[in-house]
């Protein structure tokens, strides 16, 4: 007896991992930002909030454009970027060096970890007056506080990355004649690189915070100064320009670090 074809039961295999898919929803991303701005503008136009408290987005944009044209904004941004750059370079170079040393050498670990554990929880902002006392009111104290804020996340992340280096790969390097410093350069540092880049991301946030704080004391330029000064003379629109610039700085650094990550770590699957 032949089975009738109509009786044959067929089950179609479906992709059971479908609910794990995470589409990008690009439109939603843009709409969210636009929605916030529109709401903000509408609030202003409806007269719900006085302009002194919350200037309208268009007003902020116009003010920003004027400040850009007059060169005022660029002076502030330039001064801030310079402080950020110095602080970032010094802090991350020291942080990476200390992280590698503490992660790789037992003596450095014994000395370094308690020191870092004791100093890390201090809010760096509390050290600003001390740094000013030591280094004066000029640029060095500003740069130093940013460098200090960058140093800790960098040192701690680098240390963790170094500790995570695969002992098998280290042995493989030694099997092919690598000495201590070759192992550090060719195995330990590349292993730690993803953690180091993650440290840069953490540090970027801290640096921005400390920048603004440092620029509120005894400076004549910088985005932090702009915000504080505008607030003092109740120039709310200018103040908002400063805040938008800070937000843009944060977004840009995030994007830049993403690019850096892809350039530095091309071996990551899916990168």
């Amino acid at each position, binding site marked *: 007896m032949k089975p009738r074809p109509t009786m044959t039961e067929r089950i179609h295999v479906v992709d059971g991992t479908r609910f794990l898919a995470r589409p990008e929803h690009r439109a939603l991303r843009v709409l969210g930002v636009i929605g916030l701005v529109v709401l903000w503008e509408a609030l202003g136009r409806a007269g719900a909030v006085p302009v002194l408290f919350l200037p309208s987005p268009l007003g902020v944009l116009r003010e920003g454009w004027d400040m850009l044209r007059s060169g005022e904004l660029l002076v502030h941004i330039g001064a801030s970027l310079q402080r950020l750059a110095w602080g970032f370079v010094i802090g991350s170079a020291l942080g990476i060096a200390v992280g590698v040393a503490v992660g790789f050498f037992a003596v450095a670990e014994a000395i370094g970890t308690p020191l870092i554990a004791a100093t890390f929880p201090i809010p760096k902002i509390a050290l600003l007056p001390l740094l000013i006392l030591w280094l004066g009111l000029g640029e060095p104290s500003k740069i130093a506080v940013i460098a200090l804020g960058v140093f800790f996340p960098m040192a701690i992340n680098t240390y963790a990355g170094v500790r995570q280096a695969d002992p*098998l*790969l280290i*042995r*493989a*390097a*030694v*099997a*092919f*004649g*690598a000495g201590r410093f*070759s192992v550090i350069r*060719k*195995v330990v540092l*590349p292993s730690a*690189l993803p953690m180091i880049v993650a440290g840069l991301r953490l540090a970027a946030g801290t640096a921005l915070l400390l920048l603004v704080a440092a620029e509120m004391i005894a400076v004549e330029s910088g985005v932090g100064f702009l915000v504080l000064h505008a607030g003092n003379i109740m120039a709310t629109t200018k103040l908002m320009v400063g805040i938008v610039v800070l937000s843009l700085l944060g977004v840009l650094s995030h994007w830049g670090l993403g690019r850096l990550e892809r350039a530095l*770590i*091309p*071996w990551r*699957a899916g990168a």
Partner: protein
Amino acid sequence: MRVIIDRLAKTYVDRHGAAVEALSDVSLTVESQEFVALLGPSGCGKSTLLNAVAGLLPVSAGEVMFESPPSGRPLTAMVFQEFALFPWRTVQGNVEFGLEELGMAAAERGRRARVLIETTGLAGFEARYPHQLSGGMRQRVGIARALAVDPAALLMDEPFSALDAQTRQLMQEELLALWERTRTTILYVTHNIQEAVYMADRVVVLSRRPGRVLAEIDVPLKRPRTEAMQTEPGYLETVERIWSLIKDQARAALAEQ
């Protein structure tokens, strides 16, 4: 170069103080230009032994010595069971690693590496990263990396385990041909009795953990080896003899796990 393993013992002690005796009192000499295969049940300490010979771990007792080492060549090079490729280096970069450490100039390194990439059938994949390769290809990168430095003694830990049967056979031929040319001393770990007998001059059988030398069996086959030899009575008898030696060990080791 002769490799002398003298009363070697290794006990691993973990952080909680628990001890695993991997090797106890292993003595073994690999003659200059000899091809020795090392067989033994899983977990009996074969990789441990190879790592000890390569100077990659602290031993608990005994020692390893190299007699009449050649000058200008690295003493040992290792093909790792787990491949141990550097994920941040391309195929080319991985194969060049040992040459870099020897201080070879970049151009010469590149040339040397390309030859071995060809031999191991990886041509066209020079710029790929390990995660972009199949398991068998990764293993061949590990083999190329070790062959590239032309060591006085070659330590190979199950070098063909991830290869399909056909590729494995071709790679066996390649390795045999290379050995005929260079007569490098080889210590070769494998799970495969047929492979051990086909390739080696001598097969050393280790007991289950803790590993001791159970038997050393000379292979009565001539050189160069040919596939046709795999039907010779000498080959079949040797395989049979080793299998009967190993059977009980393997069964006991399996029951233990």
